[in-house]
């Protein structure tokens, strides 16, 4: 694959890869940088790609690794910046302070649990796609989501929020 072929591939899939990363990291600037990093790894591993297989799942798998690595290394205070539409509860009894504490508690979860729960519960992606992207079984995804919810509940109870 030469650079021209790679550019065509990049232009075809950059939106999809960016979208997947954005769902995990929820930060536009980071998602853009991580998209470039993902394609950089793809470029370096291009000789190992089997053209008979679909490109998108392979790219999503690499993108997930890059995004998880970012979640592991980003400082907690930065991780609180949620670069998406403002959080708003349907229930008026839920204050913005409560939502901030929920965000903080969620961001304190281990990155693997965070990613699985974000993709499954918030972004409502298919469990099969999440499993393929994270390199685990569907059962593994369900287990991570279950553990994430249980851990989140405990953290919320600790700060006085009883869902």
């Amino acid at each position, binding site marked *: 694959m030469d650079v021209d072929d790679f550019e065509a591939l990049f232009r075809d899939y950059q939106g999809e890869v*960016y979208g997947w990363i954005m769902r995990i990291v929820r930060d536009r600037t980071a998602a853009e940088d991580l998209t*470039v990093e993902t394609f950089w790894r793809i470029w370096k591993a291009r000789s190992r790609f089997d053209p008979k297989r679909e490109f998108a799942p392979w790219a999503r798998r690499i993108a997930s690794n890059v995004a998880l690595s970012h979640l592991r290394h980003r400082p907690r205070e930065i991780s609180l910046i949620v670069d998406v539409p403002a959080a708003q509860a349907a229930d008026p009894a839920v204050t913005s302070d409560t939502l901030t504490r929920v965000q903080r508690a969620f961001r304190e979860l281990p990155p693997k649990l965070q990613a699985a729960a974000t993709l499954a519960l918030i972004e409502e992606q298919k469990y099969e796609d999440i499993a393929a992207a994270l390199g685990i079984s569907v059962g593994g995804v369900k287990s991570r989501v279950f553990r994430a919810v249980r851990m989140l509940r405990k953290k*919320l109870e600790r700060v006085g929020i009883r869902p």
Partner: protein
Amino acid sequence: MNEEQLLKAALPPVKDLEPGRDLWPAMRRKIDEQTIRVPIWDWALIAAVLAWIAIFPQSALALFYHL
């Protein structure tokens, strides 16, 4: 509200799923940088060979023979 509903309220699904800029120029720069970059180990090897030749000039002939 249960944990899942609270979570969705606190972290709504991402809607902006397209990059705000063309990312190809950044990608291209990265590829070009890698193409012209000489790994540090290569520089170390060149330095070691030059040092060896400086200390033992007669070994240069043997080295060139093997090249």
